[in-house]
């Protein structure tokens, strides 16, 4: 294993895929010489040149549309939307065009388009730069949704996304970009649609999405060491398609469930996981307690740190939920 930052893992994925396939090109705001808003793209423009790493005007509608039109006509573009908060600007291209074009036209065409964006709070970026809006894309069928929660996945899933012949949207967590972690040596690709059991346990399942994976793992280790509570942590890794089997099996085993996801609690992806778990054929009969969700509370993300910290999910809030469910 090698130690890299999450941002480096992303850059490696992009560089490798661009070397591999000339039809992969990157467009977005400030992705060129500037190296991306978060600095993680530095070096790509230098290596691949202006045509393949291309700055755009501030025109999210045209950016997504350009990626789509190119994907329909022989390219394999990777498009960046700086913050997922800006998805609304390009809302129609995402929800009505990218998501629908293959199905609606009777499967005539493949749409090998990758859209990268960032989610997450935690740096006082306030209401319009801190959201985690992946559930919106999940709600409208037609785009695969990837939420890498580990360094390994930040690279492996992005490579899979780029090679996929369907539109894939990758939500990277902006607070993880500068964090260090381990990835395998050599080339690897992590298939879409397979959840990972990050840690086995018998007492309770946490389904943890994106940055909630590390938080949940830390909590699980702590509770195991201190109190002998064994928590199973399941990371869905891709939300569409969702590997519900792994989740259901875990809950059947532990009988208790907490879902941690940074999306807003109302109508978030956490609720969707619950729906799958309690439906006929799910794990209803195995449940020993109610299910709790830890997400971003249902207000816009506030700016001031005490407010923001209260609103976004944290290890402490996951612990609170775990204890509630365990103590039931």
């Amino acid at each position, binding site marked *: 294993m090698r130690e890299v930052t999450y941002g480096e893992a992303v850059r490696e994925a992009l560089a490798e895929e661009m070397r591999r396939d000339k039809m992969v090109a990157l467009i977005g705001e400030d992705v060129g010489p500037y190296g991306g808003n978060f600095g993680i793209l530095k070096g790509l423009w230098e290596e691949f040149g202006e045509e393949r790493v291309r700055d755009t*005007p501030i*025109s999210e*509608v*045209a950016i997504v549309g*350009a990626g789509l039109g190119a994907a329909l*006509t022989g390219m394999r573009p990777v498009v960046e939307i700086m913050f997922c908060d800006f998805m609304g600007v390009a809302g129609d291209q995402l929800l009505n065009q990218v998501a629908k074009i293959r199905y609606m*036209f009777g499967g005539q065409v493949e749409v090998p388009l990758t859209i990268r964006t960032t989610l997450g709070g935690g740096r006082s970026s306030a209401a319009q730069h801190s959201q985690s809006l992946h559930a919106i894309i999940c709600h409208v069928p037609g785009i695969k949704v990837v939420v890498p929660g580990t360094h390994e996945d930040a690279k492996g899933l992005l490579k899979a996304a780029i090679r996929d012949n369907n539109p894939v949207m990758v939500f990277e967590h902006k607070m993880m970009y500068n964090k260090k972690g381990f990835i395998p040596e050599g080339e690897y690709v992590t298939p879409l649609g397979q959840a990972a059991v990050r840690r086995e346990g018998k007492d309770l399942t946490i389904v943890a999405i994106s940055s909630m994976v590390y938080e949940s793992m830390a909590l699980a280790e702590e509770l195991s060491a201190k109190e002998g509570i064994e928590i199973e942590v399941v990371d869905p890794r891709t939300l569409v398609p969702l590997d519900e089997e792994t989740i259901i099996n875990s809950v059947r085993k532990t009988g208790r469930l907490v879902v941690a996801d940074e999306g807003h609690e109302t109508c978030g992806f956490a609720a969707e996981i619950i729906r799958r778990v309690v439906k006929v054929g799910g794990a209803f009969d195995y449940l020993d307690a109610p299910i709790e969700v830890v997400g971003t509370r249902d207000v816009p993300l506030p700016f001031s740190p005490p407010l923001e910290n209260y609103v976004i999910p944290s290890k402490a809030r996951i612990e609170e939920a775990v204890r509630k469910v365990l103590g039931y």
Partner: protein
Amino acid sequence: MELSKEKKLWMLERMLQIRRFEEQVYDCFLKNKIPGFAHLYIGEEAVAVGACANLREDDFITSTHRGHGHLLAKGADPDRAMAEIFGRRTGYCLGRGGTMHIADFSLGILGANGIVGGGLPISVGAGWSAKYRGTDQVTVCFFGDGASNQGAFHESVNLASVWNLPVIFVCENNQFGISVHQSRHQKIKDVAVRAKAYDIPGVIVDGMDVLAVYEACREAVERARQGGGPTIVECKTYRFMGHHVGDPGTVYRDKEEVEAWKEKCPIKCFADKLIAEGVMTAAEFEALDKRVTEQMLAAVKFAEESPWPEPEEAMEGLYV
């Protein structure tokens, strides 16, 4: 440049195909044979045909909610188009798309669009791709006067301009967005003046005259193919029918206006001209019309006799 006789007859035939196709759609719609709704292209045939007459099979177009004309002009199969409108499994999109969502990617038809302005950004992507891949393919993007007020229009033309992409933005200015006259949706009289906002050429042309449209688009297509970047071509035209079948089109415009425009019928005028020029005889025109009409009746028959999709097919084909 003097056009060949074949080319002229090709244009006439294509316009006629569109007209007769749309008439069948209208008819079948009134007979409740067609589900949903339909926006007819009748009156505007010269635009699609004049523009597409410049295109190769490997060139691209993006289309609109009023898309049947664009499809046929780019060479789509009337049978499969009609079957799609009928919602049958033999349709272009297996019945999943319907009137507003027909595409034929093998002909570079990147799809009609139910969203006003929705096709513009896609056309820019096709243009970017052609340039990136080093081909000389061009993309024609059809859009309406109403669509020219969408943000998507602005972002798309700006991107095509600053990246110097081979896209021809063909505005079908039929003066209305549903019931709203141009004077009530924009202060400008000519959509083409918007080209100035992107420092690209903008031309205005009589959209009822297929040769005029052809010529204007020819220049724009040549320029685009040679790396000269995008153009806006505004075609002044008119829809003879309501906004969609079901709208009589009378609340917001008066009969005289409609009648006056019908006088300029692009097909009749062009046919008359070809007859006057001796390119064809009146009898030949009649024969052509008969043939085309039969072709469209056959398309209806094909559609009607085609099977419906099975319900469960709805769950197929979301992903590769």
